[in-house]
């Protein structure tokens, strides 16, 4: 067990939305949960996020968006990951996401959406259960 690689997570904020408290809280929190976390910082394009995810060989991409542009950005990241043959990377999202948009996002390949009030330990458990790579 001790030789097992840590689960590696990329937390990213696509677009111009600068509200990154949740992203940072999750970055710190998942680190405390024993994961390796990279935070891209604000204002990342879907292309930049996917590039970073592949370069860093992450298991999970966590996307945060409060600007209402999630329907544009989240599926775009999923799509680009597939194009780059990295479709096995787990994509999860969070932010201000209206209920009715959650099924749309899931249909487009975002595995789960965690909204305000979600506990870090629940997110960590979800990641551990669903991470597709052998880690």
């Amino acid at each position: 067990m001790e030789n097992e690689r840590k689960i590696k997570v990329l937390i990213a904020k696509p677009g111009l939305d600068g509200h990154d408290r949740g992203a940072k809280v999750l970055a710190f929190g998942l680190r405390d949960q024993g994961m390796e976390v990279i935070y891209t910082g604000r204002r990342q394009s879907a292309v930049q996020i996917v590039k970073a995810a592949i370069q860093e060989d992450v298991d999970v991409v966590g996307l945060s968006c409060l600007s209402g542009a999630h329907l544009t950005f989240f599926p775009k990241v999923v799509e680009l990951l597939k194009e780059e043959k990295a479709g096995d990377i787990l994509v999860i999202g969070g932010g201000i996401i209206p209920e009715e948009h959650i099924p749309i996002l899931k249909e487009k390949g975002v595995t789960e959406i965690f909204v305000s009030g979600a506990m870090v330990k629940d997110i960590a458990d979800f990641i551990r259960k669903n991470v597709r790579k052998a880690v």
Partner: protein
Amino acid sequence: MHHDKLEEIKKKREEWEEKVLKPAAKRFRMEKPTEFHTPSEIEGFDFLRDVGFPGQYPFTSASFPVNLVPAVRKGAKPGGLKRASQYSGYGTPEDTRDYYKAQAALGWSGGPNFALDLPTQCGYDSDNKTVAGEVGKVGVAIDTLRDFEVIFEAFTGDQDMDKIATNMTMNAAANILIAMYIALAEKRGIPMAKLKGTPQNDILKEFVSRGTYIFPPRPSMRMFRDSVVFFTKNLPGINITSIGGYHIREGGATREQEMAFSLAIGIAYLQEGVNAGIDIDDFAPKFTFNGSGGSLEIYKEVAFHRAYRRMWAKIVKERFGAKKEESMRIRVPMFAHIGCGSTTKQRVLNNLSRTMIGGIAGLLSGGPPAVFPPYDEPLGLGWSLEARQLADDGARILMYETGMCDVLDPFAGSYFMESLTNEIEKAGWEGLQKIEDMGGAVTAIETGYMQREIARSAAERQARIERGEILLVGVNCFTEEYELDVTVNRLVEHPYSEQKRYDAEEKQKVNLAEVKRTRNNREVKRLLLELEKAAKKEDENLMPLFIQLAKEYASLQEQCDVLRGVFGEWQQDTFI
């Protein structure tokens, strides 16, 4: 109070703790007994020095001598203040104009309070490919003067630009957008001196939280200097800035961090004006505050506001040598509301209870009550008409039914409140000193100190929630299966339809293309070159050029791109 008397109280207290409190705490199995406070905690208290009268130095009890209870928008009582409308702005300028017209038809009056979309706030035009998906979301898209012209079709006659005050949430590009506002007024024959309003224009807090910066901190401060100088001389009715401690707290800062960081930022702005050679009393009264953050810890929030007012007054008077009391007074539209960060998505109607407490805290801390945000904020920007009605009615109940507005600073002289105010003030000065030792707010931001601190505080708070040290009803406690999952039944549609939201981007691109086709492109090009030259000269004030560019329909991004070339762009480190 006489020293002997205090000694007697201390002795009596010890006896009480031993004989009365301890057995009771033991009986009720309380780890920490309920607090009780006595005069001995404020030894040396001097009413005139520490509190004074409302609306007078040191402003501890209130900024104004009376409670300015505003008229609420619909069914307003006469004699209230005319206030800018609800924070709003949707899709294209046409959509926003129509929204304001519809609001006016409902009987609302007063100027708009703009929300701008993120591309506008970050200096991009609607046709920029990298901002696809964000045009017209979270606010209206503005590219050129044409867009101001369209929005303000809703404001004419007795609601013309010289008769209303306009609030605008603009920071990095505030000067360019204000120039468009001025250009529109002048086209209508209204001189800029007659304009009223408040641009947010608090760029430093954007680096700390919220994130709509464009240029690095130092050239951003040069833009700020241009506003201080130009507004002071030419725009007596326009406030210079609206300092937002609120955003810093919402970004994760503790109460004490918010206090230290926002005061440090305020000092940096005041210094900018003084360095530019303006008399402090000529511009400090034009500083406003966009409220402070809040929490449900009602006593601490009240103490925070009392301490904050006292500190600002002291800074402006003693450090900057202001003579006028208006310079030392904090002007803020609302005091201790709870902030959006205190609302929960779980059992969303509970937020109404929470915001009512915020309204009470606002009253107790020296201002009119604001039941803010609407309870549905965590469901997506708090827009539903029912939620707004309830928020408005909540404030009205506090204003007109409780009698709470009849008294200012009811805690003045309270043993507990005065000592708590002192305690919070002390922590505030210490935090401020730390930043001063680093070289001030700009340096503390460049090095990422403020950003790192608030990220840590936010993570620490979440950890405490998960350990159950902070209890949130319906989130991490009282969540058993016999608790009801209270839901909201929507009665009324959103004022702005999903379809319009979806179409906004394409429409706005067409609007912009039309402007670029019909304007004098040669003149725009010439002025942009002039802007580049002027930007390179540190001493030059760019405001007059921005107004000329606005009149020629130069776009926001065209101007920002020139400035990006000269000033550079801020690349934010992640600071975690």
